[in-house]
């Protein structure tokens, strides 16, 4: 069983999770959120450190909203941990895939999430 953490600017994370729950018509308790504190990045770093420490017995898939930004940069020091997997470019389809796709293999899950995120970007005009 994986644990998901999403790290986003503002309240993007809360909004995305709310949309997932409305679409699936159920509450989702496998996803946690850290919203960046724009005035105190150290607080966000501290929250992340505490969270990772608390969930060291889980495979942890971290999804961030913007590669190169603080939401992703604060994760980088932990990507060498064996139980930490990080993906950037979070969108709603990726989150819905994470909640609905069933597998025990963390690498397959990550591949499916990324594939879904990419596949969802469509020029339909």
């Amino acid at each position, binding site marked *: 069983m994986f644990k998901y953490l999403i790290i986003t600017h503002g309240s993007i994370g809360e909004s995305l999770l709310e949309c997932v729950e409305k*679409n*699936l018509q159920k509450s989702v308790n496998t996803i946690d959120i850290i919203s960046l504190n724009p005035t105190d990045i150290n607080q966000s770093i501290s929250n992340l450190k505490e969270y990772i420490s608390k969930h060291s017995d889980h495979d942890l898939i971290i999804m961030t909203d913007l590669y190169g930004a603080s939401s992703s940069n604060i994760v980088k020091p932990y990507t060498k941990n064996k139980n930490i997997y990080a993906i950037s470019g979070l969108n709603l*389809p990726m989150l*819905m895939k994470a909640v*609905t*796709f069933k597998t025990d293999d963390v690498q397959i899950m990550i591949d499916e999430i990324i594939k*879904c995120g990419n*596949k*969802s970007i469509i020029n*339909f005009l």
Partner: protein
Amino acid sequence: MIKKDLIIKNQLGLHARASNKLATLSSKFNSNVEIIYNDEKVDAKNMMDILLLSIGLHDTFTLKIEGSDEKKAFESIVKLVDNFFGEGK
């Protein structure tokens, strides 16, 4: 193996909630359940793969089911489609 074309009758088509209902229902059966639409084939137990087909009102898709409980699965899915995915219209 059962293979049959179905027409979407509910106004919103195979949108998120309808796709989730179809995937949840398909997952209850041991049979392989696939949806074929516009030459793309997806696993009907995978909600996001169904959703991304973007199947709308009056669109026709092919339902392909193969396995020990294929008849029961087919009847249940046809019922879901015919009942407008529980959306009333």
